[in-house]
């Protein structure tokens, strides 16, 4: 078996992974990134709208500062975030944007003079200042007090990822693409690297590293309908959970984005609404101001998605062969705006829906989009439970998002966390040595080799991997969607446990040779079902509504009993995760209060004392 030695192993070569890699490479360490796809195809590239950072350059961002950004982020999280981490993030975000500018990102810039913009359906005028000319500009996003989202048209993730990978090439970061990681190698105390399978040849490889980073993004593909790329199957979370030592945080906190297109579930950016697009129902009525007079379409995503679902349940959805949907209307923004600021949206509408967004509204509905949960880390990005294991980006529960993240805060998190965690990993590498016991490495590899042989030989059964996956999809649809309740969640959990049994009895129908896709899915699926079980079990136990976690049977946000983060670990051979809880935050710069949108009731933390 081919074995690679390196100082730092980054699992994932999207923005968070490469940003950490760059920090370590610049400090003189050897770095290898592993990626399912060429680095530039990582799902970071699909982020359209932008990155939040309180630069305050544009007219509508005047007076912005990290304090205001912090307040928006904490409210957005529904007080579920770690406030120390959120503070670290908002303070560092402006520097990160400027660094990206120096590295080559073609940020849109302030153009001085008067111009018009839309808010909701109405036209307003603003004037950009002469002394800000040529500085990084920003657009509006949901749940923000200021225009704060830095962007390059609607291809922000793409340009930032291309710039990041350019920088990685410049610094000699090695990327092994078409490689999937099957397990971590560890001795119960230290993480020592990973066992991986080459997706060009099918060969197993061992990577031995003094420090390992999990930056594999989200796990949206446990849902049938997700805006996520097909690679977002939670691979990094699975290998962490499978250690039995490393907990995943807040897995029940799953974000549904208001504007996935129908059909195909492809995302159109929140920038559409930020730039003045509106949501209409079957009567072409703009309904969001009825529910949210102040924020309307620009309340936080959890709130907008819930009102959309509620409105469709009232019979106001537009019927279609693919189920009910609503309309996103950007016709009034005009051809020039679409051609410069919303180009990808324009292409997606034309290529996938066959409509021109200048002529016709876009069919949309809330669709699974983001995983607030992930590998639980401390503020340095160090995972709980294993020394030498770190995590950053969507894969991590660092936890600046709590129970709902704001649009533009996750793309920014990738580079800001990458910068901060990268520096901490450099410190760690400077002082940390490990030894690699040959039996530990050999046993980890042998375990994976045997799994593969058993799947090919159908030693454990002949379950069809795709049927089992579909059963997982059905179960999650049943209980773990936008609105949740105890009885549906219990059914979902029971079904998922059956699915988990079936997932252990998969047998291949093809020969499994080379880069066999059925084998890849069969190796991944049992872990995906365990992630689904963490989501469902965490959601069932959490008897309150907070951010994206909306329980119809427990509609109040319960700060008295649930101002905590769920920590899920998986003990070997158990049927369910073990759930523990820790305080949501150690510091409370802003004590729990009203978000100003969403309109939910709150059970106060103080009521405990009375």
């Amino acid at each position: 078996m081919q074995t690679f030695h390196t100082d730092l192993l980054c699992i994932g070569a999207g923005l968070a992974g490469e940003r950490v890699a760059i920090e370590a490479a610049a400090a003189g360490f050897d770095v290898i990134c592993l990626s399912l796809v060429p680095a530039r195809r990582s799902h970071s590239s699909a982020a359209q709208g932008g990155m939040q950072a309180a630069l305050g350059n544009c007219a509508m961002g005047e007076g912005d500062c990290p304090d205001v950004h912090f307040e928006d982020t904490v409210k957005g999280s529904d007080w579920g975030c770690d406030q120390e981490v959120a503070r670290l993030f908002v303070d560092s975000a402006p520097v990160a944007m400027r660094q990206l500018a120096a590295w080559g990102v073609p940020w849109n810039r302030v153009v001085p003079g008067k111009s018009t913009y839309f808010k909701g359906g109405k036209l307003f005028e603003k004037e950009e200042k002469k002394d800000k000319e040529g500085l990084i500009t920003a657009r509006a996003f949901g749940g923000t007090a200021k225009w704060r989202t830095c962007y390059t048209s609607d291809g922000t993730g793409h340009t930032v990822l291309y710039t990041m990978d350019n920088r990685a090439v410049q610094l000699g970061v090695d990327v092994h693409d078409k490689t999937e990681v099957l397990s971590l190698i560890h001795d119960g105390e230290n993480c020592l690297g990973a066992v991986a399978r080459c997706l060009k040849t099918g060969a197993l490889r061992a990577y031995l590293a003094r420090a390992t980073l999990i930056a594999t993004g989200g796990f949206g593909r446990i849902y049938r309908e997700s805006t996520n790329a097909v690679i977002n199957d939670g691979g990094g979370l699975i290998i962490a959970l499978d250690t039995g030592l490393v907990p995943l945080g807040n897995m029940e906190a799953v974000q549904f984005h208001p504007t996935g297109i129908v059909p195909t579930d492809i995302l159109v950016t929140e920038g559409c609404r930020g730039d003045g697009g509106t949501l209409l129902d079957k009567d072409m009525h703009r309904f969001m101001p009825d529910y949210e007079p102040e924020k309307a379409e620009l309340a936080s995503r959890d709130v907008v998605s819930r009102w959309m679902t509620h409105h469709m349940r009232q019979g106001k959805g537009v019927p279609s062969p693919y189920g009910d949907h609503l309309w996103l209307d950007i016709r009034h923004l005009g051809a020039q705006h679409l051609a410069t600021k919303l180009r990808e949206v324009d292409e997606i509408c034309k290529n996938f829906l066959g409509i021109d967004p200048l002529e016709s509204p876009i069919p949309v509905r809330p669709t699974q989009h983001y995983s607030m949960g992930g590998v639980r880390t401390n503020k340095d990005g160090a995972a709980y439970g294993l020394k030498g294991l770190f995590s950053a980006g969507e894969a991590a529960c660092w936890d600046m998002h709590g129970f709902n993240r704001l649009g533009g805060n996750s793309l920014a998190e990738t580079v800001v966390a990458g910068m901060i965690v990268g520096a901490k990993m450099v410190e760690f590498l400077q002082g940390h040595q490990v030894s690699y016991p040959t039996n530990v490495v050999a046993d980890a590899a042998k375990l994976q080799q045997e799994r593969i042989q058993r799947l090919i030989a159908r030693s454990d059964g002949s379950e069809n991997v795709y049927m089992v996956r579909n059963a997982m999809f059905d179960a999650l649809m049943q209980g773990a969607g936008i609105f949740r309740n105890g009885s549906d969640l219990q059914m979902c959990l029971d079904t998922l446990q059956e699915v988990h049994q079936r997932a252990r009895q998969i047998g291949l129908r093809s020969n499994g040779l080379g880069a066999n896709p059925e084998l890849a899915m069969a190796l991944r699926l049992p872990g995906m079902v365990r992630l689904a079980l963490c989501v469902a079990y965490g959601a069932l136990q959490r008897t309150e509504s907070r951010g994206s976690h909306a329980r119809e049977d427990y509609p109040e946000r319960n700060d008295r009993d649930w101002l905590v983060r769920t920590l899920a670990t998986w003990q070997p051979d158990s049927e369910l995760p073990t759930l523990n809880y820790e305080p949501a935050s150690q510091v409370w710069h802003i004590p729990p209060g009203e978000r100003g949108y969403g309109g939910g009731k709150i059970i106060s933390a103080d009521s405990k004392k009375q």
Partner: protein
Amino acid sequence: MARNLTFSIFRYNPQDPASTPHTDTFVLDETNHMTLFIALNRLREEQDPGLQFDFCCRAGICGACAMVVNGRPGLACHTKTKDLPDKITLMPLPFFTLVGDLSVDTGTWFRNMAKRVESWIHTEKEFNAEALEERMSNDVAEQIYELERCIECGCCVAACGSAILRPDFLGAAGLNRIARFLLDPRDQRTRREYFDVVGNDQGIFGCMGLLACEDVCPKHLPLQDQLGMLRWKMGWAGLMNLLPWKRK
């Protein structure tokens, strides 16, 4: 009227000693809004679980799924079956190393390209975390973005006669990358330094001018203009190099 689609798909698994290059035929009922993403996944799930192909974002953004569809390179994810006849032939992209069936290795080629054209900002300036960002006109930013929209799908290289004749040709994607940095005021490379990279048969002089690159580019990048602009600018730089007092 629902159609039955007949797919002829190139098959070869280099890792399977029993496999030889051949074509397999599959029949699939067409559904509304069907794309090749939907069709190929159904074929894998319902008929042949070993069928290899690549998708990633499935939204026309990442470039993973380029293949030759009825003789023409394009992105499978945004190819609608209703725009195709009921006989559909799918082949892997030529030029790139085959992984298996419709899957090819584009990552290695594009990373080498990035190294060859030194695809990064060349500057002596150190980043200063305390300072404001350097100013740039929004027009210039938008011009750079226009060329930055390349998704490295490989269609332009796969469709390129020059690339097939000389595998070291930078291709339209490589020349476009150079053009992107030439536009960027942050990159302090001189004309001469750019000329050293592209002023040869691997670069601008290798192009035979067939210009299929622009025809097949799924992002509709102005690739012909970049080639023309580079030849013009580099032509001048080359001429200047001949004049000893103008050299720099």
